[in-house]
């Protein structure tokens, strides 16, 4: 029964996302899918491990530039490019993670921001000969068509993004229900208590760091394939708070918060920017409101109401049915 509920919530969510394609323009739907995958890693770090990261654009850029370099200099297959982006994400996470995860949450946030700034200037100035600086790398025409799902076609890219999203969310849902997921939450609540039991917090955090940032790099590589263009703007420090904002907007630590947050954020940006010059102001006020209203975010508030509405009869021992962290 739990397995059915487990799968149905995922299938229903992604069926609704597929329906979104009918009601919104394709670029908007694709942007939501990529932004959701971009944010889910940040949501995992913040909601599960208790680490806020203002450096997610750094890992997005790692995935995007790794794929971009491949497309611009070496090959044409979009799937290979995405795979290279993911491998680069794992590599960079493993390189910096052992140092970063030793830090306290506040320093962790800042050191990641510093990494984003470093990568920004490397791509803009230091490696200008191969990155073309602010002009970026253009490779849309280099991408080759692929059988089954041709990622050079935006409509087929959307199907691919949906499938990737489904796998990513299934993976995070699976993680939530494992001992490792409980360890992550335990590490967030009180790391000493985990040590009493014999767990090494460092290993738990390092694995979480690699998982989260590899997901972000995957989003970066998908972004590169979708746009056929990458510039240093992708890792601009001015956009460092975007995934954190979307995470809070959707509901920190909730499974579907990143999707809801991405729809809300991208939607507001799309709609409000047409009528308001300073649309970020509205986002700012909305975040203040969410914080004051209980920090639950949109999905964090809606989820219990929806569960209550759709539950036919209260099951005995219902408290136990809510999974860890309410996800």
């Amino acid at each position, binding site marked *: 029964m739990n397995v059915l509920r487990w799968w149905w919530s995922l299938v229903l969510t992604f069926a609704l996302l597929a329906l979104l394609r009918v009601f919104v323009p394709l670029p908007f739907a694709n942007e939501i899918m990529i932004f959701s995958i971009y944010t889910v890693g940040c949501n995992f770090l913040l909601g599960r491990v208790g680490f806020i990261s203002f450096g997610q654009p750094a890992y997005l850029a790692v995935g995007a530039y790794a794929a971009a370099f491949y497309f611009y200099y070496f090959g044409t297959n979009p799937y290979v490019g995405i795979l290279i982006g993911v491998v680069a994400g794992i590599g960079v996470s493993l390189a910096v993670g052992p140092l970063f995860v030793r830090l306290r949450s506040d320093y962790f946030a800042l050191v990641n921001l510093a990494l984003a700034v470093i990568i920004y200037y490397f791509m803009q100035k230091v490696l200008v000969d191969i990155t073309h600086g602010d002009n970026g790398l253009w490779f849309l025409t280099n991408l080759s068509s692929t059988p089954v799902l041709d990622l050079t076609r935006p409509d087929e890219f959307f199907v691919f993004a949906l499938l990737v999203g489904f796998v990513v969310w299934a993976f995070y849902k699976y993680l939530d229900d494992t001992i490792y997921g409980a360890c992550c939450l335990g590490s967030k609540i009180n790391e000493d208590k985990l*040590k009493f039991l014999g*767990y*090494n917090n460092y290993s738990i955090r390092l694995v979480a760091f690699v998982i989260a940032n590899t997901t972000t790099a995957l989003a970066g590589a998908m972004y590169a394939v979708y746009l056929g263009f990458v510039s240093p703007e992708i890792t601009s420090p001015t956009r460092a708070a975007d995934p954190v904002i979307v995470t809070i907007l959707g509901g920190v630590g909730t499974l579907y918060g990143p999707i809801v947050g991405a729809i809300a954020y991208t939607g507001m940006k799309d709609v409000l920017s047409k009528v308001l010059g300073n649309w970020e102001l509205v986002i700012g006020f909305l975040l203040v409101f969410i914080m004051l209203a209980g920090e639950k975010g949109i999905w964090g508030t809606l989820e219990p109401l929806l569960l209550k509405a759709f539950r036919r009869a209260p099951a005995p021992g219902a408290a136990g049915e809510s999974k860890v*962290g309410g996800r």
Partner: protein
Amino acid sequence: MSGGDDILTVSALNVAYGESKALFDVNFRVGPNEIVACVGRNGAGKSTLLKCIAGFLKPASGSIMSNATSLVGIAAYAIAGMGIKYVPQDKKVFSDLTVRENLELGSYASKDYDWTQVTEYFPKLKVLMDRKAGFLSGGERQMLMIGRAILGRPKLLLVDEPTEGLAPSIVGQLREVFRDLSKGTALVIVEQNLPLVCAIANRVYALNEGRIMAELAGHESIKPENCERYL
């Protein structure tokens, strides 16, 4: 009993919080299947001693040996992995996790998935399995913490103020649990409840201002009036 047989031997242990010294030349030992109690006033250094053994505090000097292995400098999680489990005083469980998930965490760490002993000792936990630990009473939390710690049958259990703030019926239940546990696990209990200490302890160390003032051994010596002198 020779020192080599001891589950734990603490020698000339000195611990300081910065400039402030908390333990002075503490000597302490725990034999197999023994229940050793530490009594003393608040601030005497009892909890500091347990934290130091469990690896949460680094001693300034001295040695902590467990079956010929030095515990000094070993990470707390590794000491737990060696079968020396610590149950802290604060009764803080993982409040967002259910009782079942809390026990699963203990099981996975100790590779012991048999909860028979836990549920025999604390039958109430069986009906609370799906309740979030944050909603448990103080006594239920203590049951959960001890239940989680005894998974994997540790060789030494360090328990800090287990009965603080608990109802007498639960204190009685814990007394029987500790007695039964000691058949396979040595226990160090920091406790101010002298009737409990006198009922179960094989040896009592009285601490005052960071120093061991007395060591009482045998049921003739371990009496409330003898312990009270140091409180």
